[in-house]
């Protein structure tokens, strides 16, 4: 485990923001931190980045309790992010890079690489207020990763980007992971969770209600719905071990969605149908992360 939080509790004046939150983030993976608005994600991130302190519990980095210097091994892109409007883009990026511990020379060298990579070299001497929102997002992204941190925390990194630029950022996230960085991604965009994340934790009402590998979670939440494509145009089998959800003819086939009932195994279910019909294809429906999210949160 690269990062762990153990029983973190945080109480604000009128509400409990985090209630015994423990998450485990393996090294070199993308970890999705999910949850509805106000669930406590931002509070947890602020505790990991040492912006605030927990009332109890602890944060471990690399197996030992995190200390003040760890801040400089973390790159954090907050959801509420901005830039000094009156500053020039280059100066601003230099300033943020130096604040994150780079020397002037290193900061300049790294900036040149990143500005070229994101194709914003021409903006170096322009004022921030002249930039479009997407441009500003690029500058913010660069200033998050410039000091080559081991742990990256992105809170809604794709908001404000058009699809082309969002894709650039996605590629960068995967590239950083392949370099061995550990990444925490907090987002409401479930498609990108399926696309990028290896593990997730779902926080709801200040508690972790779901945690694990993305694929395992989807499997665990499968609704036992199977899709069959059969030869012929009729299906009239009835059996207590399944209910028919829909049937639709398709050319010379018929497509079924059936939900398994009771203790019958998938194999027996298939065998049951195979005995009477010719099965062209069959698969089990896996829920999207969106389904899992909604089902868990509204339960």
């Amino acid at each position, binding site marked *: 485990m690269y990062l762990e939080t153990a029983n973190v509790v945080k109480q604000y004046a009128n509400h409990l923001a985090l209630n015994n939150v423990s998450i485990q983030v393996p090294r070199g993976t993308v970890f999705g931190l999910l949850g509805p608005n106000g669930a406590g994600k931002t509070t947890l991130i602020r505790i990991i980045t040492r*912006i*605030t302190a927990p009332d109890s519990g602890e944060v471990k980095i690399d197996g030992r309790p995190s200390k003040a210097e760890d801040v400089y091994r973390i790159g954090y892109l907050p959801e509420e*992010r*901005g830039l000094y409007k009156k500053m020039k883009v280059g100066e601003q990026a230099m300033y943020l890079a130096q*604040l994150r*511990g780079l020397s002037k020379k290193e900061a300049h060298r790294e900036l040149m690489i990143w500005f070229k990579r994101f194709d914003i070299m021409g903006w170096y001497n322009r004022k921030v207020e002249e930039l479009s929102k997407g441009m500003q997002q690029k500058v913010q992204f660069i200033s998050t990763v410039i000091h080559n941190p081991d742990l990256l925390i992105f809170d809604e990194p794709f908001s404000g980007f058009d699809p082309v630029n969002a894709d650039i950022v996605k590629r960068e996230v995967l590239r950083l992971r392949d370099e061995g960085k550990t990444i925490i991604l907090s987002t409401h965009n479930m498609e990108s969770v399926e696309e990028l994340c290896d593990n997730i934790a779902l926080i709801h009402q200040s508690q972790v209600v779901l945690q694990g590998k993305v694929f395992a979670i989807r499997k665990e939440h499968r609704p036992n719905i199977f899709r069959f494509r059969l030869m012929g145009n009729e299906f009239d089998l009835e059996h207590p071990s399944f209910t028919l959800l829909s049937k639709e003819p398709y050319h010379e086939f018929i497509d079924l969605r059936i939900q398994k009932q009771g203790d019958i195994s998938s194999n027996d279910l298939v065998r049951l149908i195979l005995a009477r019909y010719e099965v062209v294809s069959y698969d089990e429906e896996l829920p999207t992360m969106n389904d899992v999210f909604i089902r868990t949160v509204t339960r």
Partner: protein
Amino acid sequence: MNRLGLVIQREYITRVRKKSFIILTLLMPLLMVALSLVPLWLSTLNDGSVKNVAVIDNTGIYAPLLQSTDAYQFQVIGGSGQQEPESRLGKDLFAILQITEDLNQNPRAVSLTSQKQAPQELQSMIVRTLNEKVTQQKLDDLSSSGNVDREAITQVRSIVEEGSKVSLRTLRLDSGGSVSESSTELATVIGMLFTILIYMFILMYGNMVMQAVLEEKKSRIVEVMVSSVKPVNLLLGKVVGIGLVGITQLIIWAILMGFFFSGLSFFIASPGQMDTAMPAQMSSFDMEGIMNTVMSVNWLEIGFYFILFFIGGYILYASIFAMFASAVDSDEDTSQFMTPVTLIIVFAFLAGFYSVNNPDGPLAFWASLVPFSSPIVMMVRIPFGIPLWEKLLSIVLLYGTFILISIIAAKIYRVGILMYGKKPSIKEMVKWIKYK
């Protein structure tokens, strides 16, 4: 460079480079010079009538030397027996010059009493005459001592080089019959000048700190910042950086004033040039007198206390401004918290204004000890000369308070900058202090 240093550097450089800062810094001294010199110049304008000055010279040495001019008629009056000359002041007498002792022994034994402020022109004429005589007296003493040797020659050299420093006390007789030393007028002007300066700086730079905190909150950069800089350092960097901008402005002003006055003394040192440079009616504008007065003030002491009170007052109010700015999200919301603070500052300024008339009264005394008004009010009183313990107590109280307030402010700031949405109540802000 460490992070605090970087924050200070950014806050400082972005402000010093602004056009508005440069323009204000260069124009302000011109305005101040004009404001302070015009009344002085007006007061020295001659109204054309001949003024009578009574001379009471107990020694009899100096009276015959005073030459009447077109504007002033000197009349020698015997020591006693006659009608008290004070009663004639303002009628046929303009001023009374009183010499009580040999000025060679006691250079302060001379005073000039008048109802109106004695013109610089008259003062410097008297001082010049008396100084010449005293120098002569000293040289006479030396030659009458007989043996003129090597040591005596060095003494002569130093006498001539130093000149003599007869100090003329100017007294004013007001209509109530009481006499006050009129150098208080200068003290008043200086006191007011520094009070206005400190008042202006606290408001202006306190507001600048507030705007800086609010700017970071509004532009949402603050969370980016605190992920690499501790909130305390962010606040400290802001207060120090902006304070340094203020100090830079003060230093530039001091240098500009220095240039101005040394330029002035250059003109005075070469009178021929001045005569041609100035129109005829301005020749009565006695630069030398003004210069002497200006130079006689203990600028070092006043400057020293000014810096101390400036730093204390600025940090105290900057912390308060920053504390409230951190708790709100928009300019409109600041007014609820800012109005009471601004009122306190304005109250302090008014207290300072009234303390000028009575620098040792209870209002002046208490207002110069209470930390929230002391930086402003104390600057009025210092030029009048007040006991050291009062100054020290005031500074200790001020510095103690600002340390306490800035610790509280830092705690509230740390929570406030990350809070968006609802405007917090004072009660909620007190709770924030206890957050981990």
